[in-house]
C-alpha cells in the first residue's frame, strides 16, 4: 500500500514537499515506517529517526500498525509557544 506522510515546519523545506509517499506492507509499525522514510527520503532521515509519527491526528503508540487509509504525519522539531 502507499502511505502519504504529511510533513510540517522545517521538514517541508527539506523534503521539498508537504507530503512524501512511501510504499509499505499493510500493517507496518510506526518505527519501521520512520526507518523507511529515512531510507527513501534522505533529507528527512534525521527528522524521521528523531521525530514521531501521528496516525489520525494522535501520536502513534510504539508498535502501532499503519493501515490503509490512515492519515499519517511526521511530527518533528515543533516550535510553538
Amino acid at each position, binding site marked *: 500500500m502507499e502511505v502519504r506522510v*504529511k510533513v510540517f515546519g*522545517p521538514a*517541508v523545506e527539506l523534503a521539498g514537499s508537504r507530503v512524501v509517499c512511501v510504499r509499505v506492507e499493510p500493517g507496518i509499525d510506526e518505527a519501521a515506517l520512520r526507518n523507511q522514510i529515512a531510507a527513501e527520503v534522505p533529507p528527512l532521515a534525521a527528522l524521521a529517526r528523531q521525530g514521531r509519527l*501521528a496516525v489520525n491526528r494522535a501520536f502513534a503508540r510504539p508498535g502501532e500498525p499503519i493501515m490503509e487509509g490512515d492519515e499519517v504525519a511526521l*511530527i518533528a522539531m515543533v516550535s510553538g509557544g
Partner: protein
Amino acid sequence: MNVEIRIVDGALARPAERGPGCGVGAVIAFEGVVRGEENGRAITGLDYEVYEGMAERELERLAVEVATSHGLMAVRVWHSRGFVAVGACSFRLEMESAHRQASLRAVAEFIDRLKRDVPIWKRAVEDRADSSQAPNRAGQQN
C-alpha cells in the same frame, strides 16, 4: 476544572477582564511576545503553522494532564496561527489555583511540554511579503 483552548488567526488580542472562580488564590498569566530578532538577524515577525485538529487535541490533553497533576482550578490557552508581527502576543497561558506554587510550577511544565509535544511550528519572517511562503523554519524559543 475549567479548560479552554483557542487557536486564532494572527496576533492575540487583550483578554477580557474576568473574575477568578470561587476558591482561587492565584492567577498566573504568561504571554509569549514576538522578538525583533531571530538567530541574530532582524525579523518582522513569526509565521506559525498549525497541524489543525491535532494541535488543539494535544493542547487540551496537555492542559488536562497539567491541571490534574498540579490541582489547578482552570487552564486557558490561546495560540496564534499565521503571521504575528514583532511586539505582538502569539501565545497566552492562564492558570488558576488555590495557592501560587501550583500555578507557577504548572506554567513552566506546560510550556516545556508544549515545545516538545504540540504540533505547531514557527518560521522567522524577515520581510512581510515572505510570510505567505509555504516552508517553515523552526526558530529559537520565546
